[in-house]
């Protein structure tokens, strides 16, 4: 395996230093490092971050390989600076058995662009009725620790309670897609001024908040870890803040798109802005940013949701929900959090690498950039601004809500255990 010297990298945005990478690990950090035969990577002006970890990625394989495959999705992840992604369970067939999670895990290893950690379904077929074989998935080669019916809410309180209790046996966590189903039947977008004007069925904030409130109480009651997927409302933030203040073992994530976009985007009726949970109001965006800054929300997770063109080039009501995000996440976080002085680069490293790795129990990811850590490193140039170009993306799908938007920053290199998956902005 090659040896690399990364020269003059600003580690977590600090003063320039060199990073010596050898045998898949960080061998040394310091000034003026050199090693015989080492390849030199000039990182002058670049910020070095621990390789990013995504808790919430839809890779679509098996079943919807027209939208994304494990290979194309992990290429997109590498281009976005990620060294690990959690592959969501709502594939076809659903990842609700050891067989399917092992298949996804193996495809990830074969592709080699980043670690693919499968998420297991909580219930069989994500139907919300019977627990899937959670223990079998935990014990499989894929070592599943995160369980989620994402796309669907585990709305039955008893099933949710049982799942929370059951995963304690292997230190698992249930990641809840908080959406009260009856309150959101046929819902198209955030319920408020925009939905009233646009004549679209509203998706009330309370449908998310009511489930979160119930689940933090359940988690507290049974003493289990609970993770809340894609928090989208100011009210949800308040409930999570309250729960944490009571010692509830809850963690939460926010997506890049909920940190930047609001429901006025629906005014175009362009379904590229249709997503679950929906884009909310500008006040919600502000609350989410502050919650991520103060740690009420633990991490950023992309909810990368690829869809083929024909699923979005339609009337809003029939379009698929979701947007891709792996290749723009870091730029969006810079725009929403760093350039607004809400978070420094150390904070970004925590929210996009260390915290999600901790929640997902990935031992080899999200480690500090120091000697002895696995060499999972992202080199990022925060200075250029560019218009987002969907056609230039590595993802198979093009449904980015940021198309044409000018965003800062560019991932220059990604190292996965000492091997570059991206160098000079290009996939290796």
């Amino acid at each position, binding site marked *: 395996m090659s040896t690399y010297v990364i020269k003059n990298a600003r580690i977590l945005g600090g003063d320039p230093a060199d990073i010596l990478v050898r045998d898949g690990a960080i061998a040394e950090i310091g000034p003026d490092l050199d090693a015989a035969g080492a390849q030199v990577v000039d990182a002058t002006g670049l910020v070095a971050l621990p390789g990013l970890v995504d808790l919430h990625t839809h890779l679509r394989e098996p079943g919807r390989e027209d939208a994304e495959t494990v290979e194309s999705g992990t290429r997109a992840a590498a281009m976005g600076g990620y060294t690990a992604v959690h592959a969501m369970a709502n594939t076809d067939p659903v990842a609700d058995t050891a067989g399917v999670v092992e298949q996804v895990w193996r495809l990830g290893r074969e592709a080699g662009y980043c670690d693919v950690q499968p998420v297991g379904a909580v219930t069989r077929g994500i139907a919300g009725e019977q627990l899937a074989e959670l223990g079998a998935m935990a014990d499989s080669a894929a070592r599943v620790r995160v369980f989620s019916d994402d796309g669907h809410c585990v709305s039955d309180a008893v099933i949710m309670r049982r799942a929370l209790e059951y995963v304690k046996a292997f230190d698992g966590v249930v990641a809840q897609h908080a959406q009260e189903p009856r309150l959101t039947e046929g819902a*198209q977008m955030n319920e408020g001024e925009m939905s*009233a*004007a*646009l*004549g*679209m069925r509203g998706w009330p904030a309370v449908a998310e908040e009511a489930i979160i409130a119930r689940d933090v109480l359940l988690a507290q009651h049974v003493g289990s870890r609970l993770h809340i997927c894609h928090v989208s409302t100011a009210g949800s933030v308040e409930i999570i803040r309250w729960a944490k203040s009571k010692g509830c073992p809850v963690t939460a994530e926010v997506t890049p798109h909920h940190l930047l976009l609001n429901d006025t985007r629906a005014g175009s*009726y362009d379904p590229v802005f249709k997503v679950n949970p929906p884009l909310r109001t500008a006040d919600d965006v502000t609350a989410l940013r502050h919650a991520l800054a103060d740690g009420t929300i633990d991490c950023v997770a992309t909810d990368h949701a690829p869809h083929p063109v024909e699923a979005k080039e*339609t*009337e*809003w009501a029939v379009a698929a929900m979701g947007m891709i995000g792996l290749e723009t996440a870091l730029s969006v976080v810079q725009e929403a959090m760093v350039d607004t002085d809400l978070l420094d680069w150390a904070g970004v490293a925590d929210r996009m690498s260390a915290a999600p790795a901790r929640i997902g129990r990935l031992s080899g990811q999200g480690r500090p950039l120091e000697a002895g850590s696995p060499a999972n490193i992202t080199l990022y140039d925060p200075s250029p601004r560019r218009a987002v170009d969907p056609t230039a993306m590595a993802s198979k799908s093009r449904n980015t809500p940021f198309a044409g938007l000018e965003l800062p920053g560019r991932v220059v290199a990604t190292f996965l255990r000492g091997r570059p998956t991206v160098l000079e902005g290009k996939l290796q």
Partner: protein
Amino acid sequence: MKRHLISAADLTKDDALLILDTAEELDRISGRSIKKLPTLRGRTVVNLFFEDSTRTRISFEAAAKRLSADVINFSAKGSSVSKGESLKDTALTLEAMGADGVVIRHSASGAPHRLANWVQGSVVNAGDGTHEHPTQALLDAFTMRRRLGGLEGRKVTIVGDVLHSRVARSNVLLLDTLGAEVTVVAPPTLLPVAIDTWPCEVSYDLDAVLPKSDVVMMLRVQHERMNASYFPTVREYSRRYGLDVARMNVLPEHAIVMHPGPMNRGVEIAAEVADSVRSTIVEQVANGVSARMAVLYLLLGGSEPAIGKEVSE
């Protein structure tokens, strides 16, 4: 005036008055034995109806034909659309046939917005989902103006399922533009949560509002609302929000009663009220042709928008 008519909010006050004045002129030919003008000769108007609505379709068809346009009726049933063809492919087909104007009716809110991205011609919204129905608002304004004179300061009460009503949305916007004072009356379940952001007053009490109304417009209660707990029973709805003779009698002498049709007689409106001299329901149908003629004339009347200073989108 914009190139398309998708929302009543697309119209400035000057645009709206120009359409109403033009409709007034065009209405005169409806009284002639030969009801035809050569204005849109050689132009093609497509009626693209994804939802059954015979009355709106024939109104647009009559309007286009009286202006000598070629009319193609494209209804979703029995066409490639029912076999799964996308709106985009339908739009590209129309584009290839050279449609100058597309009149679209669709069950999805925003479908006309989407269509406007894919065709060159002017798009006229003939009702999209629970969003808008701007030509209905224009014909309603036309009818009010004829009966009452100007609309400035007139008090218009819109009663019923405002939440799901495209007629209500377009009327609130257009009437506000034209200077009327609108009050919407409904059970709270049938009002949008953000109704306070609309340019209108809100009341839950029909009896309190009627004595000061110049116009009362009753909205149709859709059957699918009746079993979805928006109100306990049809009879209770009718008692609290239906316009019966006793309620009609507390209206001011000059006040008119409107309904966009089709009516549920005995639910939102009593038969005696629908057939009374105050009722403009049949006039509204006739006026619809004139209002739609004015819209088509102004949008398609020349190589440039007939009244537009600029083509904007």
